[in-house]
């Protein structure tokens, strides 16, 4: 039994569960520093990285200075504080068939329990704030079919806690699947049961398009809602958020505040939801008219912080960035207290634009709310020097010709 770990887990679990959020800021800070200290000692690749860059616990006095680990490191190194015998579950990122390129997130039994708590607490506040249970229809494989997927796992926790009878996972690829899904949704409508449709943004869009092809407009029962995860990053289809929300409104009869987006990552135990919309204003970048529904900005839960970092500015991660201009563009750096056995500070490659809100603006905790713009992809024109992308294409062509 790892006493130090269980002590930390208990403190963080209490912090997550605490109803009262006063004093959160300093408590978050001290917990983060405690977790950093633990991780420095226990996660070898992390310790070596901290030593290499000369940023160690004795030199860090605020959570903003905790060295963040690149998401890419989760593919290459074992980023876990415990021994193999404590590993209860390993999640792997998707998006590529090459196993060497998938992030791996290790969890002990206790670590899974903290994640469960984080998942439920967050969902209760951001997706089921009215306390209503719904029939949950998840568009995607259940954990038995996709044991590597942290998203399937998370969805199954939600089904368990918030799902009325008849909740479950549905495939959503073929026409047949979509027809079965439609039947399931229609049953909810017929029985006047609120339904929560949950899945990747793409799966939901597929369903909207399926309905559009039949010119179907459903009127889901009051209390129904939709949760979509992942957005449209890195794919050929791209529709703006407001168009997606409009489709949900037309096809399912859902008001905009009932359509919620979620950011989840294999490297993080916690998720980031849209904050409740219509509370905060965000001036549209493209000069859209004021008739556009309010952008759904993301706000981390109280046991997380997210910074927007501009990688072009050295040292753009320290406290200075919390004082920086009101709107900022950069890549997201997350600090997740529920990541106890894996690095709590994670540097992603997600591009975002965000706004810093202080406690004074009625936004606990202070920090960034943000909108994800996509992945930091290298799509701009480049030179004629050979790149690894060139080689991949060449190899593919050689094997097909």
């Amino acid at each position, binding site marked *: 039994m790892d006493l130090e770990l269980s002590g930390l887990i208990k403190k963080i679990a209490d912090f997550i569960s605490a109803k009262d959020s006063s004093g959160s800021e300093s408590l978050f800070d001290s917990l983060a520093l405690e977790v950093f200290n633990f991780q420095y000692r226990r996660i070898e690749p992390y310790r070596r*990285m901290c030593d*290499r860059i000369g940023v160690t616990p004795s030199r860090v006095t605020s959570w903003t200075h905790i060295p963040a680990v690149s998401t890419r490191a989760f593919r*290459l190194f074992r980023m876990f504080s415990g021994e193999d015998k404590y590993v209860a579950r390993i999640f792997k990122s998707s998006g590529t068939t090459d196993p060497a390129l998938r992030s791996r997130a290790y969890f002990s039994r206790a670590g899974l329990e903290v994640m469960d708590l984080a998942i439920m607490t967050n969902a209760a506040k951001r997706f089921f704030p009215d306390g209503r249970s719904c029939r949950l229809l998840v568009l995607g494989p259940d954990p038995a079919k996709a044991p590597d997927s942290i998203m399937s796992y998370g969805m199954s926790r939600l089904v368990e806690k918030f799902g009325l009878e008849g909740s479950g996972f549905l495939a959503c690829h073929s026409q047949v699947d979509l027809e079965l899904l439609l039947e399931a949704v229609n049953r909810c409508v017929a029985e006047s049961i609120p339904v929560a449709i949950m899945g990747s943004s793409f799966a939901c869009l597929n369903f909207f398009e399926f309905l559009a092809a039949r010119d179907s407009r459903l009127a889901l029962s009051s209390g129904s809602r939709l949760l979509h995860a992942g957005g449209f990053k890195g794919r050929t289809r791209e529709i703006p958020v407001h168009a997606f929300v409009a489709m949900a409104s037309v096809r399912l009869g859902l008001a905009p505040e009932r359509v919620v987006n979620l950011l989840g990552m294999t490297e993080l135990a916690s998720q980031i939801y849209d904050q409740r919309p219509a509370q905060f204003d965000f001036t549209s970048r493209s000069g859209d008219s004021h008739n556009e529904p309010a952008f759904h900005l993301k706000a981390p839960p109280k046991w997380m912080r997210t910074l927007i970092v501009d990688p072009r500015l050295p040292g753009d991660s320290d406290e200075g960035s919390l004082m920086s201009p009101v709107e900022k563009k950069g890549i997201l750096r997350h600090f997740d207290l529920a990541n106890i056995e894996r690095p709590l500070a994670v540097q992603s490659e997600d591009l975002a634009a965000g706004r810093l809100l202080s406690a004074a603006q009625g936004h606990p905790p202070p920090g960034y709310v943000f909108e994800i713009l996509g992945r930091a992809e290298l799509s701009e*024109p480049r*030179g004629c*020097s050979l*790149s690894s992308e060139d080689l991949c294409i060449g190899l593919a062509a050689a094997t097909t010709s």
Partner: protein
Amino acid sequence: MLTDAISWWLPPELEAKLNLVPDSHFEIIRQYEHGAQSISVGFKCLTPMGMTIACEFLKEKRDAVLLTKSIDQIAGALDAASEQWLDPAFEHRSRAIRWISAVTGFSSEMVAHSIDLEMKSSRRQHLIQALRNEIGNPYSLDDFQENPNACGFTRAYGPQLVGAIFSSNIPALPHLEVMRAMLLKSSCIGRVSAGEPIFLALYSRALEKIDPDIASCLAVVYWQREAVDTESAFLNSVDHLVAYGGDSQIQRLMRARPPGLNSTWHGHRLGVAYITRGALSASGITDLARKIAYDFSIFDGQACLCPQVCFVERGGEISPRRFAETCAEQMIYWKDILPPQSLSISAASHRYHTREIYLMRESMGEPVQVVDAPEDLSFTVLLEESGRVEPSPGGRFLRIMPVEDSIEVQRLLKPLANHLQCAALACGTDESVRMSEVAAKLASAGVSRIVPPGIMGTPSMMWHHDGQACLAKMARWCDIELLSPEEMLELGSDRDP
């Protein structure tokens, strides 16, 4: 449409013609942003009909105009153009520097330097020499010339119309193809790259002032990626295709072009540097490191000419590690003179993560040492013994690989044979035998140009670009033979073989 800059050129006569035909062309605007700089650039897109009209026009002009000009006149005009571009007071030069910097993010110092490098290698002497190198007697493009190798006369002709497709963001690169076409008395129609659409339009305008006839044989246009019909009209109208691009672009064009269309391909390339142990002397190390760092800094590592790996033999007076450290100092030296390209957040993120992972791999005991990698992401110097040569992540990325000898390097380069181009080779003053040996190994591996360090970025026009005789490829010949081969032999017994 008012934009900050334009990317197109049409001879006035052709422009007037196209304006009379509805649906022959349309304009699009692209916005480029780098940090505080923002610039809008206008593109003239031809429709299939417009393309056909333009190509017809250019072919007629070639016959009516270029064929009546002499090689000396054409070389003279091109030389005058190069000279102009080298003059700091030339108005188009400062405009080009400003606009290309805004579009590409390259510092204005780098853009100016690139223009200088290109123009200094495009003088009259180079142009004539290039023809001599591949065509033999340059004046065979004017008229039948006596052929010293046979008993008779030879004449050469270039294609009527060369079509060029440019890619990449390297400043001023396209003008090389215009010169090649003109030297063969061919008209040229070029599609600019969205990555650097500025130079060719300004070059054309400047050329018009020098020689409007020659400039009337040139068109600089655009069509969007999806405009396959326009591309098809282009491919079916030109007599020779020159295409730059990555493997996928080239493979696509290979399939799309008419089967009989002669083509010259310039794909993406990987350059190397090779330092023998004899070159690693304490007295010469700083100078050598400065030259290597320069080669790794020009064009911010993005040109095909740029090196991506530096092989350093072990066992010299200076160790590979010490050499790497000296190179790192020199990368800082060049940073001041040629400031780095301004980066988008995406590009910077990529470098940021790459840097983080290298630091982690080093700290986990993998065979890689991060010799220097400043937090501002301006350059990286690594010492790596991974046993594999891979393309670098881009930017000023100096990867030093300690090696035993050129046999090892030949093995390492084998998988990249189709993508090799330039090699910088440094040997000791007493290593002439080794130099031949290493050069031979590099050449057999697929390298098409070997130079001393410091000039990787300035190929001459005599270089067989990507191993091809680019001028000769476009030529066709007519020989007048006055004797039979048997008779030539009888004659030959009196002559030196």
